[in-house]
């Protein structure tokens, strides 16, 4: 078959250009984080630092009193939040798909309905509810209301609907009860879906800005996203520090993205099919 060559070239030009557009801001951020302040204020179009330095990173880790703390907070909240989500969402998805109980279908419809409710309507009442529960300004304020995720309950339900029944029956013949079957057999077999929801839930907790802003008031309890914002408002034009802090906040996600790329891509496909 004859195929014209130039459309192919045009395609690649578009792809590469858009890749450059995507990478350009990141490249500036990363390289600025290695520049001394003098090079930042000098402006200029030299992307590459003339006198590369690690001083910016040193500053944010040793001289800023709270920055390391914020990293730890974010790790703690995102990790705990992910663990509870994975457990609760998977249990709920399994229950909705496999276990018959009165009201199950209504509950499922209710979950589908609340998926459409915009988050803004919940912010003020949740603030008041957490205030009366006494958990404002604690990690719990971020973890407990976010301990389940309707989209991933839905995802897990779809997964378990197609899950082979024979596996559970075999486990029951072997004398395992329902909970043992779930934990020892079903949960491990769902690990691909579990991993997919885990990376996106972690990402959600790690990147969340609005909820920490509303529910956390003590600076030493800030998450990294909120810390970054307060750091920026204190360091106004010290872009070398701000970029170093931003880069540090992105690195864990990039590592996760590279290591678990398969699950990210799978999750995106699910998102795309909606």
């Amino acid at each position: 078959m004859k195929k014209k060559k130039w459309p192919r070239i045009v395609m690649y030009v578009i792809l590469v250009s858009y890749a450059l557009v995507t990478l350009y801001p990141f490249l500036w951020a990363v390289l600025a984080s290695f520049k001394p302040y003098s090079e930042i204020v000098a402006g200029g179009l030299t992307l590459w630092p003339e006198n590369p330095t690690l001083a910016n990173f040193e500053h944010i880790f040793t001289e800023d009193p709270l920055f390391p703390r914020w990293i730890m907070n974010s790790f703690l909240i995102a990790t705990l939040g992910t663990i509870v989500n994975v457990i609760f969402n998977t249990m709920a998805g399994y229950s909705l798909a496999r276990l018959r109980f009165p009201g199950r279908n209504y509950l499922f419809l209710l979950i589908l309905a609340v998926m459409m409710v915009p988050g803004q309507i919940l912010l003020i009442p949740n603030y008041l509810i957490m205030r009366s529960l006494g958990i404002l300004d604690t990690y719990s304020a971020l973890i407990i209301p976010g301990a389940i995720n309707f989209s991933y309950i839905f995802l897990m339900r779809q997964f378990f609907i197609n899950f082979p029944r024979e596996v559970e029956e075999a486990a029951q013949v072997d004398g395992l009860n329902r909970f043992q079957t779930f934990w020892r057999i079903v949960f491990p077999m769902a690990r691909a879906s579990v991993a997919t929801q885990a990376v996106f839930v972690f990402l959600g907790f790690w990147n969340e800005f609005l909820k920490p802003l509303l529910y956390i008031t003590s600076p030493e309890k800030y998450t990294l996203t909120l810390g970054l914002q307060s750091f920026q408002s204190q360091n106004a034009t010290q872009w070398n520090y701000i970029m170093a802090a931003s880069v540090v906040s992105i690195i864990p996600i990039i590592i996760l993205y590279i290591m678990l790329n398969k699950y990210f891509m799978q999750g995106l496909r699910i998102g795309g099919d909606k």
Partner: protein
Amino acid sequence: MGTQLEINRRTDTASQAPPPKKKKGSERDRREAVQGMTFMLPTIIILVTFTLLPIAYSLFLSFTRVNLFGGIDFQWVGFENYINAWNDDRVWTALKNTFRYALFVVPIQTAIALLMAAVLNSGIRFQNTFRTIYFLPTLTSSSALTMIFMFLFSLNGPINNVLVSLGLLDAPVNFINETDFALTTIMVMNIWSTVPFFMTIYLAGLQDIPSSLYEAASLDGANAWQKLMKITVPNLTPVTNYVLLMGIIGCFQLFDQAYIISGGTGGPNNATLTFSLIIYQYAFKTIGTMGYASALAIILTIIIFTVSMIARKLNKEESNY
């Protein structure tokens, strides 16, 4: 329930006819129901406490004036909050900003997303490599992205340097502090960061179009343009409606970037005041206006639902063909 079981048991023993399996079955059903509800318990507790109750609470709050002094004190004010919203200039400014923002951002991001999805789907190599790169902005937190863009658009930043050296600007502009440019900076950033997500949705839509349609068109002698207009575009209409809907909803929910760029004020001169930002300000920054903020949140929800319903209706008419 207990009597029901007893009756079952009695009929079982009396007639001997139904196999013992049935009795066992009902007991198993009961156990399964208990297990099912146990597995749902954490979800039900959180769903009720942090979603269902808040929806009702929010509606209630919107008709009250809330005072937070130690405890909580509500004062029923009827529709006053809603009437005040109608007469509040800042609400109209926020709505105007949101519409301006949506009119600019939604068409551009949709067009770029469709274009990039079509290019990715054209059988090129390294598809996954490009997708991996394109997705970086979507993974990055809004706060880190806003920092990076504030730097790019800052006085000594690269954007100013490029524009000045090209002679497009006489002197560097402080984009994020200029009424005319602050919102534009957010627009550019958000187009850049949301395109990958919509691109993925379009890509899935493109891959769902049966290739037999294109083959048949080729046999009929259709060229690439005709195939695009007669097959691709009509088949993607539901996807496009979804992308537009999500795009518009995203505009109404815009908060993080506007908050960070303006330091929470919505300035300069209310240029970055978005609907979500105004709710935040009335709820948490000014005293005694939490009920009013709740009314605004209800209005926002109604707007979003209306947009969704319109989109759904359009999709239904589309699938009637």
